[in-house]
């Protein structure tokens, strides 16, 4: 490709920073507009109740400054985030960092267990016929069980055998996130070329060797696609699991409490925090994926 030095601005846009910034700004603009749109009715009501005269500027300003807006404006969320992260000690129960960490720890534990379980199941399914035939349909069925319905029972049962705190929540995450990994890995472990499998046969390689030398490397693109989905689902699972454990701490508890008391700004700041966390986790998986690909001699 042409090696001419791009201009600084062009260079900015050739990387990730520029496009993300532009689209991010567009998103924020859209969000502000949405806030006006959604909050206008209530604002007009409020003006009417207060009996004040208002013009469009007042309306806009009003919709961006409500205490319980339908959709809080970005700066309100940002202020709340700032207040609950930077201005609050991280050990405090009012700190979003504290709650974020509670959620993150069960996300990561659940994800690690889920990824492992998913991989193990896929390995079993690919290698053992009876597992494939008997287990697969039930794994699928298991995923259609509405988690929030059984979660309380799971928590009660696990609590009765002495498991409390982090583990039950992670179990829920694990349950949700092993599935994309398993599905992707089953496909991936079966993705090697027939010729490449034949080569292994000619060496009379054991199933274990075929697995490590061939199936595993071939499955990596599928694995990483699965892991990216899994880690975000794991986060969702961790948040869901915070409800039946008494919603004591974590982003889920924040969301619930915010929702219960109609504090939309709090909901949105927890939402934004969760989304940022997810994006970071997914980006991290992406970075690991690229690194692995580089080590495996992928063509850039």
């Amino acid at each position, binding site marked *: 490709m042409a090696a001419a030095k791009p201009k600084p601005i062009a260079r900015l846009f050739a990387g990730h920073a520029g496009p993300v910034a532009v689209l991010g700004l567009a998103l924020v603009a859209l969000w502000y507009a949405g806030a006006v749109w959604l909050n206008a009715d209530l604002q007009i009501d409020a003006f009417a109740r207060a009996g004040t005269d208002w013009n469009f500027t007042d309306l806009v300003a009003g919709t961006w400054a409500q205490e319980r807006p339908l959709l809080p404006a970005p700066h309100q969320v940002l202020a709340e985030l700032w207040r609950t992260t930077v201005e609050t000690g991280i050990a405090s129960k009012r700190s979003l960092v504290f709650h974020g960490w509670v959620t993150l720890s069960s996300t990561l534990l659940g994800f690690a267990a889920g990824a492992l379980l998913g991989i193990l199941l896929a390995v079993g399914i690919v290698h053992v016929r009876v597992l494939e035939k008997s287990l697969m349909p039930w794994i699928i069925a298991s995923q259609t069980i509405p988690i929030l319905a059984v979660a309380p029972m799971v928590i009660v049962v696990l609590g009765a055998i002495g498991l409390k705190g982090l583990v039950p929540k992670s179990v829920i995450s694990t349950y949700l996130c092993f599935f994309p990994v398993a599905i992707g890995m089953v496909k991936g472990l079966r993705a090697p070329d027939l010729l490449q499998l*034949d*080569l292994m046969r000619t060496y009379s390689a054991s199933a274990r060797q075929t697995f490590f*030398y061939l199936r595993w490397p071939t499955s990596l693109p599928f694995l990483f696609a699965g892991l990216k989905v899994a880690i975000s689902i794991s986060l969702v699972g961790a948040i869901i699991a915070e409800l039946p454990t008494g919603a004591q701490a974590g982003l889920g508890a924040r969301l619930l409490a915010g929702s219960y008391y109609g504090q939309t700004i709090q909901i949105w700041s927890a939402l934004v925090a969760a989304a940022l966390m997810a994006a970071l986790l997914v980006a991290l998986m992406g970075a690991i994926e690229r690194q692995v690909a580089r080590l495996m*001699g992928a063509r850039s």
Partner: protein
Amino acid sequence: MAAKVVDIAGLSLTFETKDGPVYALSNVDLTIRRGEFVSFIGPSGCGKTTLLRVIADLEKSTGGSIAVNGLSPEEARLQRAYGYVFQAPALYPWRNIERNVTLPLEIMGMPKAERQARAKKYLELVNLGGFERKFPWQLSGGMQQRASIARALSFEPDLLLMDEPFGALDEIVRDHLNEQLLRLWDKTEKTVVFVTHSIPEAVFLSSKIVVMSPRPGRIIDVIETDFPRGRGLDIRETPEFLKIAHRVREGLRAGHAYED
């Protein structure tokens, strides 16, 4: 007489496809003894690869019998009786060339230092010294093919099954490798089964040439040659050589459908 390495009788293989069966092999009889160098030659699609794959237990015959080293092909495969060179290079893209060549050695549990020595030896044999650290996509087509040959040679099997190993190589390299292969065969009493499209190559290398014909795939001629074991490339000008080459060509032509 030397032991039978491959013993095939009445072998047939039919592929079932959506639009009817394909008769890839039909009633094939063939015996290959220890120390022989056997070439399969025949028109494209006549079943050479299929026959080689049946010997290697990569394909199951649908009729007749086959024994490899007196065992079923599967047992022979499990004993790692042979090395196989595929028609396509089949290198693993995530391994560099050296590690592609040492793959079978790793699987067979050879220590690392020895593996690397082997890789070096055979990569040099196929003129790929210096390319150890490259990945397959950084190699030309012919270089990839040579890497896959080095991979099959590296674990020094007694029986070599090679499917058009030199198809993608130029004449000079090909001659060079022909000589190397012959020397190897000579020195080590290996048995080689070799698929080729080149009549001179078949005649030069083989102690037995099997001419095949398509639809259904079958053997139409088996030619035994008796050139001295230590032969050089120069025998290619002898009348004996040309006579055999002519017979092969006639067989091939007979196997072809077209009249022009």
